């Protein structure tokens, strides 16, 4: 007689697994919801029109967060304006313009490693290189450049994956219609890869809006509303960090956090909405 191992009947296993998966998902959602509700509940009471549009008063104990909203928009915008063309361009080059060789594999590996480097390292790099060596000082420019360096690997990787996922047959068809490589990239490959590329960029927006480590070292923490790229500015995250870390005002910190969460939510909703419209227009 062979040894009889104890086995649950398949129906029981099925039911058990279902319960476990349900629980896992439930716990995950609960944690997320709890965090968001906690922040909104503590933060929303201080959010008023004046809070959104007023200057920082008394180091942040009173007044609003308008300067940090402006700072966030400028620094994130600048970082994306630099990182997107560079990142997507590199991805196009790596996928469409080179044959897979040892060098491209090495580059790819390097990019992957860079994507895993903690952001504070990029902060240190930005401080040493942009702030000190290039004498850009604590400024929106230094912050934007350092942030761009941090985002670059992610944008390259996600764009590359998106471009590689475009069926080879689209390229073949396009080439067979007498197009050059660039025409094929622009008119056949990129439109199909765009949703994936945009996903990477949207994630990058989220990351840069939430980034503090890089910016404390490079953009400084001025509380005035910035008017030029060479001025220091603090982003909402940095503002939040300083308010909480220095014990200036927990309530104002929560208010800033609430605005952060809400703005990331709005950015995601809008960008995914646009993306969805683009996709459905092409496949209708």
């Amino acid at each position, binding site marked *: 007689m062979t040894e009889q191992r104890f086995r649950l009947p398949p129906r029981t296993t099925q039911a058990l697994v279902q319960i476990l998966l349900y629980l896992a998902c439930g716990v995950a959602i609960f944690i997320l919801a709890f965090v968001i509700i906690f922040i909104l509940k503590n933060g929303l009471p201080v959010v008023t029109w004046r809070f959104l549009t007023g200057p920082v008063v008394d180091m942040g104990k009173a007044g609003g967060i308008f300067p940090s909203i402006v700072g966030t928009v400028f620094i994130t915008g600048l970082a994306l304006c630099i990182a997107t063309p560079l990142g997507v361009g590199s991805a196009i080059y790596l996928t469409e313009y080179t*044959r897979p060789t040892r060098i491209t594999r090495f580059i790819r590996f390097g990019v992957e490693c860079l994507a895993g480097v903690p952001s504070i390292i990029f902060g240190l790099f930005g401080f040493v290189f942009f702030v000190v060596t290039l004498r850009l000082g604590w400024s929106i420019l230094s912050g934007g450049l350092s942030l761009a360096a941090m985002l670059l690997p992610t944008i390259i990787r996600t764009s590359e994956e998106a471009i590689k996922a475009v069926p080879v047959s689209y390229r073949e068809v396009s080439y067979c*219609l007498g197009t050059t490589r660039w025409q094929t990239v622009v008119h*056949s490959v990129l439109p199909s890869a765009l949703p994936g590329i945009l996903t990477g960029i949207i994630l990058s927006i989220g990351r840069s809006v939430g980034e503090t480590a890089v910016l404390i070292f490079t953009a400084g923490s001025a509380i005035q509303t910035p008017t030029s790229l060479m001025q220091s500015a603090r982003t909402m995250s940095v503002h939040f960090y300083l308010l909480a870390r220095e014990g200036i005002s927990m309530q104002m910190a929560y208010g800033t956090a609430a605005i952060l969460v809400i703005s990331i939510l709005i950015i995601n909703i809008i960008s995914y909405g646009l993306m969805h419209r683009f996709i459905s227009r092409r496949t209708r």
Partner: protein
Amino acid sequence: MNDDTIFVINNLRVWYGAVEAVRNISCGIRRHEILGIIGPANSGKTSFLRTLNRLNDLVPSCRTEGEVLLNGVDIYSDDMPVPELRKRVGMVFALPVPLPMSIMDNITYGPRMQGIRSRSTLSEITEKCLRAASLWDEVKDRLHVSAFRLSGGQQQRLCIARTLALQPDVILFDEPCSGLDPISTAKVEATMVELKQRHTIVLVTNNTKQASRVSDRVAFFLQGELVEIGATDRIFTAPRDRRTEDYIAGRFG
């Protein structure tokens, strides 16, 4: 070389890495004929076809040797503009590949890339090509819907129409009916016969019956070699090589 030969292929060899897919093939392709290429899987039919418009250039491991003359010009010479070549030698694939855009945009893709912008010209091209591919009546009211909405057979005729939009001299068909039902197949075959008035057609097919129905001449490929080439009637009634006879009779392959 006489004037009614459009393609002359001399000692063509194609390798994918270490695998030799086409072994020393020499033959000619005549103007306004349908040349059917038959042979079992892995006999180098498709590899041969893809050298005629240099589509193999896209395969990193591929190496080509020998001479392919289009109207007397070696298409593998360094100063051959490849996009120009592919405009003159169009291709239709085994599975229909509509690009993710509207029917009209699919047809006008090639012309638009050549810089044609005029809407009326593009509309004219669309109608002309769809008529030539006998698809016009089925889609004329919905030119702006996605090409994905069409059935498989319609999509394949769309791909033919799209190729026609560049007015190529030669059209390469790579098993164009392998994914189609018999009725769609009949339509595509009828279209091909129609097209040979203006174009030269090279048809790779796994279906010997199809080759016998539509082609003027037939070439039989086996393991990368050209076993026999000749008039369709002759190949099917009196093949000179034993292997051709066995393949046509269905004894292998």
